[in-house]
């Protein structure tokens, strides 16, 4: 639904900024979605969007710009403008290539699996890889990653498992 509601270019850039299907949910009323799908031009449609910023730790920021009623195009532009104004870290060029294709591939594969059984797609944030590669500098999750691998917690893990640190 997200890929249909947002243009490919906007969707890909949002992915680059760290938004993904768990951060951007577009909730359509079914009838409205059917009518939109039937439209020959498939232009922007009104949607209710929950959006969480991947770079904010405040409750308000996590939902910024909040429950948004407007066109999908306007929402995408709003999000991108926030990043372009420097309010959030800029994407790394290496992350831009192929992100949307990877997501589309996962959705397609899940659709095929769903023909014969239960299928789903989820996206996780690889905290260790992101930390080591310097991805999303300044993101508060890196503090948690550092804490999880601090000498104190390594020692705690050793004590819990009985294996030496």
């Amino acid at each position: 639904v997200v890929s249909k509601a947002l243009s490919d270019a906007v969707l890909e850039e949002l992915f680059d900024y760290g938004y993904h299907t768990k951060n951007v949910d577009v909730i359509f009323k079914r009838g409205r979605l059917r009518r939109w799908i039937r439209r020959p031009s498939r232009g922007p449609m009104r949607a209710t969007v929950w959006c969480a910023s991947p770079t904010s730790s405040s409750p308000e920021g996590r939902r910024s710009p909040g429950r948004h009623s407007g066109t999908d195009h306007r929402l995408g532009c709003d999000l991108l403008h926030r990043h372009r104004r420097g309010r959030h870290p800029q994407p790394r060029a290496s992350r831009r290539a192929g992100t949307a294709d990877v997501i589309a591939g996962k959705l397609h594969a899940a659709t095929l699996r769903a023909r014969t059984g239960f299928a789903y797609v989820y996206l996780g944030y690889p905290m260790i890889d992101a930390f080591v590669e310097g991805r999303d500098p300044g993101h508060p999750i890196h503090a948690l990653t550092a804490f999880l691998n601090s000498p104190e917690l390594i020692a705690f893990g050793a004590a819990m498992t009985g294996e030496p640190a």
Partner: protein
Amino acid sequence: VTKIDAQATLYRPADFLTTMHDDTGAGERLAAYTLGLTARMAARLGRPAAVP
């Protein structure tokens, strides 16, 4: 114990995890843990019972 791996996953209402295992075949995993972070969590919503 030389490192603690971590992956962040966001669960929304109605999201759930199916039966699974984390055996990747690498043979380096000793134990697994889950750290739950819940926004606006309150005691009235339930919490683990104290261990006697």
